[in-house]
């Protein structure tokens, strides 16, 4: 599968980043075992692929929860109560950044700017961005994320 992704994107200029994005999209992370396949497929040294993956916080090398919740820590969000939101989120989930809940449902991450500054503070879940986030709205959001999974059990 990794080889297929590499093959489908290798013609792009600077193909490494598109490949890593696609792998993370499909697998939820970039598995360690994928690195050699990527390197071979793109004719890049293994060390270079490793260097790029480890440079971007966005890429994770270990499995993450079903939902990745990212809290913005950039200037505008901080000015609008982002720090309090961070604290609340950590408490609510019982997680530090880059940690995942025991039921593998939610991973908490931070980002620097989601381009939604007018509606600070912002949170992103998957590809969906939520603005004007408060503790209450965050709690509701998390409950919503957790609910279907609980039902599914």
């Amino acid at each position, binding site marked *: 599968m990794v080889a297929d992704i590499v093959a489908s994107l290798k013609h792009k200029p600077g193909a490494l980043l598109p490949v890593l994005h696609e792998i993370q999209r499909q697998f939820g992370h970039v598995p360690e075992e994928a690195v050699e396949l990527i390197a071979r497929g793109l004719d890049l040294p*293994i*060390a270079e692929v490793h260097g790029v993956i480890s440079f971007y916080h966005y890429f994770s090398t270990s499995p993450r929860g079903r939902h990745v919740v990212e809290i913005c820590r950039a200037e505008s969000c901080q000015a609008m109560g982002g720090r309090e939101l961070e604290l609340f989120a950590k408490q609510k989930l019982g997680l530090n950044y880059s940690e995942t809940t025991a039921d593998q449902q939610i991973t908490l991450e931070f980002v620097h700017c989601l381009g939604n500054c007018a509606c600070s503070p912002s949170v992103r879940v998957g590809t969906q961005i939520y603005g004007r986030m408060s503790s209450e709205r965050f709690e509701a959001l998390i409950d919503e994320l957790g609910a279907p999974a609980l039902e599914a059990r």
Partner: protein
Amino acid sequence: MLEYFDPRNDIDPERDYGTAAPSTDPVPTGDLVDLVVDGAKVRVPDGTSVMRAASIAGINIPKLCATDSLEAYGSCRLCLVEIGGKAGYSASCTTLVEEGMEVSTQSDKLGRLRRNVMELYISDHPLDCLTCSANGDCELQDMAGIVGLREQRYGDGGSNHLDDMPDGSNPYFQYDPAKCIVCSRCVRACEQIQGTYALSISGRGFASRISAGQGQPFMDSDCVSCGACVQACPTATLTEKTIIATGQPDHSVITTCAYCGVGCAFKAEMKGDQVVRMVPWKGGRANRGHACIKGRFAFGYASHKDRITQPMIRQSIDLPWRNVSWDEAFEFAAGRLRSIQAEYGRDSVGGITSSRCTNEEIYLVQKMVRAAFGNNNIDNCARVCHAPTGFGLKTTLGESAGTQTFDSVEKTDVMLVIGANPTESHPVFGSRMRKRLREGTRLIVVDPRRIDLVKSPHAETAYHLKLLPGTNVALINALAHVIVDEGLEQAAFIAQRCEREAFDTWRTFIGDSRHSPEQTEQYTGVPAEDVRQAARLYATGGNAAIYYGLGVTEHSQGSTAVMGIANLAMLTGNIGREGVGVNPMRGQNNVQGACDMGSFPHELPGYRHLSGDPVRQQFEEAWGVDILPEPGYRITNMLDAAVEGSLKGMYIQGEDIAQSDPNTQHVEAALGNLECLIVQDLFLNETAKYAHVFLPGSTFLEKDGTFTNAERRISPVRKVMAPASGLQEWQVTAGLSRALGYAMDYDHPSEIMDEIAALTPAFGGVSYDRLDREGSLQWPCNEDAPDGTPIMHVEAFVRGKGFFALTEFIPTDEKVTEQFPLLLTTGRILSQYNVGAQTRRTDNVAWHSEDVLEVHAQDAQDRGIENGDLVSLSSRSGITQLHVKVSDRVQPGVVYTTFHHPETGANVITTDNSDWATNCPEYKVTAVQVGKPIGASTSEWQQKHARFSETQIALLDRQGEAQ
């Protein structure tokens, strides 16, 4: 004003100028720029950095991330300077000089800036300088001193890396991240100098760390242990384990590596008479400051416990050895040789020299054979590697040597690599090739196997022509055919420089459709269209250079292939200037020299045939003896004669024919038949187990002399410690010769070189004085070429007009059959050297502890074989057993192995086939079968060999017992 200087003479290799010169040309062609640095006027070539210009003026700007072996990086911010008219502070390493520039390297403001930068570095660095392994050789320590750092205000409470654990997985060096300042010099060295790209910076910001491979221990990564990172490291982060164990050296001596034909210059760094490390010397013109795992680290064999340092003799090979004095050994050996000659005739003894030895040693042995043995039974191991090069290039171009200097690769636009594996066998030159390939040079590889060069990081291979072993000549002819067929030849060059008649004949010959790629495809297996395109690229892609190795010479048509290669170069006018030419990649350190020194049965020094009366008389006069005008035995003839019983005595210097020569069982039969075998070596090698006299050899660290590398460069080998046996090898040869009744009176090898220079025109201008002064010289070096000759055949070919030789393809007799359906080709691996006598006695075995057989998945599947299985490998010559590596490097129908380990007996498999002109063995083509192991884990030969070896080692241990 400091005038622009001539870097040929004025660059000091001991200094670090911070950034490289803008061009490697001896005299740069670009414009010169005037600037002022701290009030001093400097004139430098355009493209020079401010840092380098200052350094040339004697002003050393503080720096950490810059070093002149790497491209400027601009990350450490210590080298900031003020430039008149420019706002702010510029990094002097990345700022290039401009006309009229005024630079200040010192001011209060700069001083504060630098101290602040240093303070930040030191805030995450252990302050254990006194007990640190880099104490005395640490640029961080030096810079802290130079910028005047007096305090570190950040305390030690914050985050830091001081508890990071060292990685000692590599046997030769340690990586200690706690000492790392993340200057990236190691990463850049791995990329820019070595070209392996095994290192990167992982993480970012504070988390940035050097990481090997995928964040692995160094040994598990792609690291090839060349040591470039260790050398580039400004701190103790990457340090040789010998330095950690023993401390900094107290003095150093420049010498020449004794491994491959690249001939790297090294600084042997010493403590008393102990070598603590070998560091590639920046002043070395063959290696330009780079090294490989062998030269850099694998010198421990010199003090290995297996070394034999006492002369030994025994009456017969089933008796224990007896330690004797040198004189007793000489008398015993001479007495035996003389009585053999008395009984069986003058021709019943012969000698073999080694391409591992110095020019002076080789010259003396051939002199001893001719003068004291009284025959021409002298050959050297070039017979089994590059003899076809000598013959083929002499015939076509007029000189038995490569046409180029290594630096020439930097002007090459198209590389045609045939049957060579430079990144394994000539690693330092391989790195230079890769560097050029990254700059966009097009690469054509002709090889049955996918060599590493085909997959070089950040470089492309235009064509890999995967031919079947044994079809070089067909392919080379096809390339020539296309060039002629499509009218791509350089008619003016041919008309002016080559023999008309020979060319016309050849033109008709090669134009025939039997040489067309469409026709030769049936032999080579290479698609015709690929051959056509590769030929067009070679003929029209600009400066095109051919690099070839033993994959060309070690064939039944080795000489034909070499002539075909020369034809290609002449046909396209790719000869006689930089960037082009014919480059034989010489296997051993002194193959070129061994051939130059006349250690051939038919030639006197300087490739002059014995039958020429004036030449022979010159030597007869100088040596005071009569020299036979008829050629003597080649190695193969000697072995045949020994088996048949007419040759009874041999002197073998530094060569292990029982492991390295083909058809081992034939060699063993020959050695076993001798009445007197004298072996001179460091160890009791496979050949020495058949010997009656053992004369201990000296390592390259224990003697003075010279080696001549693949670019005809004569470089000095210097004694850094006393010979363990008490005598240097040339003294041993002289001693034996004296005992034979022919005195040789030399006090020093320089006198031998003087004799060589006096008798050999190409060496006329060579002397130890000049080598000491100039570092190295490329022959011909004489009245016509006082400074030596980096590029040959510039105005005219050495033979006058170039000669197009006819190169009919005749398939080898070694054909696949139902019984032996696969083709075996043999080669080398980076970490081991030849028979491995030295490298197997170092930590290099951590990389290659046994020879394995590469088999394509399809062939493995057909035989029910899996990766790692033990298999039997059989040919018409013999059977051995070894483990399999299933690999897509080889194509279906082809298997590959190395011959570094005696237990494997790869040469039990190879056959007696050899080159039609020179008898160079056909190592590269053997029809074989691979199958399930037969009974035990080893073959019958392997068991016999193991028993014999065991007995012989026991006889060595019982030495001293009464015979």
